[in-house]
């Protein structure tokens, strides 16, 4: 009977294609918008992702998310180092500074100051130069997107020349010498990121009494991270987060205090509604058009459970195809544009599951309407002309 069900479905070419298009579009919208949302949210804590080594971040207790920097006293690094279970702790600076470009315009940059001795928390990949080049006088490493984009030199004829190793920048009236180009995870604000040493960053930064943004620490092997964080908090009066907790704090802040979730949720909901209305309605119409034949099959001895399986098979078949095409199109879109543009696209397996569940739900809603109609159908309908 599966054979009959599938032939009934694919034989009605127009409706079959209509249902698949509806489901493909729904799957595409749900997957793509969710993936963009996931991509953008990932960018909010890209600094933590790129920092790599530290597994504990110590900040002021009032800090609400990663960009909410409340400077600490430099001595806090020493206090953290003295806490039991801490293997090492390094100071880190993170702040926004103005870079003056060759054409006289200013560009806001994110400046990250790494521990002078260890350079822990540096960029995850170097395109040109090495991390240790930061030890050269006035040395800074610029991220490649910034070097090619917002920090690129604009020649008098309007041509843009990417910033290169050997070029100089003016950071808050201080000379900065480009010693390397790095590759980092795109940041949420999309401002250029400049790495330098902690001491140099504090020189670049406007003078304040306190300039330490974070203490980045590592627990000794075998230590329970949460226990170490608790001990740090007790010893210093600061707040210590594990890397995942700090990411979560940032993620939740953006969820709660920005309009992003509702905006993306609206687009995802639109995809769902499109799926239910187009695919659901077309599938229901397909069933209505075939009601006479379902009735005929019923009269000829097909039981309700078999008819139920036939309709579910039809729904799952179009659902599977629509989902595959939609996810495929979303992935292709992400692959094609993700590498070349600023588009944030991140498609973890969890999103694929969510998308699959949504499409399955659409199919089940569509099938439920049809199933109800067919189950209630009295086979005597076949004798009515």
């Amino acid at each position, binding site marked *: 009977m599966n*054979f009959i069900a599938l032939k009934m479905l694919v*034989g009605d070419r127009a409706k079959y294609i209509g249902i698949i298009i509806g489901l493909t579009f729904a799957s595409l919208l749900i997957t793509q918008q969710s993936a963009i949302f996931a991509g953008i949210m990932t960018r909010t804590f890209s600094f933590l992702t790129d920092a790599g080594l530290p597994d504990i971040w110590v900040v002021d207790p009032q800090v609400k998310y990663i960009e909410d920097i409340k400077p600490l006293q430099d001595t806090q690094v020493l206090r953290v180092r003295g806490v039991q279970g801490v293997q090492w702790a390094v100071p880190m600076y993170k702040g926004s500074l103005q870079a003056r470009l060759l054409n006289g315009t200013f560009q806001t940059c994110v400046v990250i100051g790494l521990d002078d001795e260890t350079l822990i928390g540096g960029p995850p990949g170097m395109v040109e130069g090495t991390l240790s080049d930061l030890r050269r006088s006035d040395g800074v490493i610029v991220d490649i997107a910034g070097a090619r984009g917002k920090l690129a030199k604009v020649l008098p004829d309007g041509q843009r020349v990417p910033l290169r190793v050997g070029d100089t920048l003016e950071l808050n009236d201080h000379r900065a010498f480009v010693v390397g180009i790095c590759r980092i995870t795109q940041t949420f604000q999309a401002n250029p990121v400049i790495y330098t040493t902690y001491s140099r960053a504090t020189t670049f930064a406007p003078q304040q009494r306190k300039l330490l943004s974070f203490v980045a620490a590592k627990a000794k092997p075998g230590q329970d991270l949460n226990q170490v964080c608790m001990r740090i908090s007790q010893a210093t009066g600061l707040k210590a987060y594990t890397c995942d907790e700090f990411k979560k704090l940032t993620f939740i802040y953006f969820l709660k205090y920005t309009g992003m979730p509702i905006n993306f949720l609206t687009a995802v909901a639109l995809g769902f509604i499109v799926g239910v209305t187009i695919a659901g309605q077309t599938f229901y119409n397909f069933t209505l058009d075939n009601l006479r034949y379902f009735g005929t099959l019923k009269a000829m*001895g097909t*039981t309700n459970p078999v008819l139920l399986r036939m309709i579910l098979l039809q729904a799952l078949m179009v659902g599977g195809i629509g989902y595959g095409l939609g996810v495929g199109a979303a992935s292709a879109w992400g692959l094609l544009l993700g590498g070349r543009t600023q588009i944030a696209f991140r498609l973890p397996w969890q999103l694929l599951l969510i998308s699959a569940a949504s499409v399955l739900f659409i199919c089940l809603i569509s099938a439920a309407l049809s199933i109800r109609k067919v189950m209630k159908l009295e086979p005597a309908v076949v004798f*009515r002309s």
Partner: protein
Amino acid sequence: MTSIPQQVNDRNGVAVRCHGVTKTYGQGTAAVQALRGIDLEVRTGELLMLVGPSGCGKTTLISVIAGVLGRYGGECSVFEHDYKQMAKVDTTRFRGRNIGFVFQAFNLIPTLTSAENVAAPLMINGTKRRAAVNQADEVLEKVGFDRRMMLSFPQDLSGGQQQRVAIARALVHNPRLIVCDGPTSALDGETGQLVMELMRRLALGKDRALVVVTHDARIFQFADRIARMEDGRITQVENPPPQPTSSPTTS
């Protein structure tokens, strides 16, 4: 042309027995009594025609006999199986094994080939697709189909050819009762004669029965008995008119 018996063999068993069958559609003032106490027997080896004006209850009666209509009054049993004593699912399975259907509008599934349409009752009863289609091919050969026609879709066939497919579908699983609703209504006279001839030749057997609902007086001659209905009642059961002397022209 197949010979048409004028007398029913009384020694045959009973295929269908209806006693006091009533059926009312709707409720209250809108209620319409379609059947008003039908008593009828159809014997094995017999082709019984139900005739009468529109709205007299023929289709309702055939629906009761075929077990496709729930909630009726009285008793109706087919080959000693009383539908009212059977669970709904058992009635459905009973229909699948024992009853063949021929419809006025053919009701062939347009996306299946002729052979696949004919194979449907076998697949419903659990036969694998390949075996079912092979068996369907054999029955289609009996109704005069060649290979090309077996692979044709219903919309590519003439009305007569479609009805031959429908007949093959009604016969393929060897049901003991075949019910036909206006099998010749959508056909011209000559094709109608051919279809009825085919049905008598292929469908009637010693332990089989045919119940045909029709308006078409041109095919009355193919009946063993004719039950006339009026206003929900059987008013007369009679023998058919004499067999015509000349055979219909075959095309």
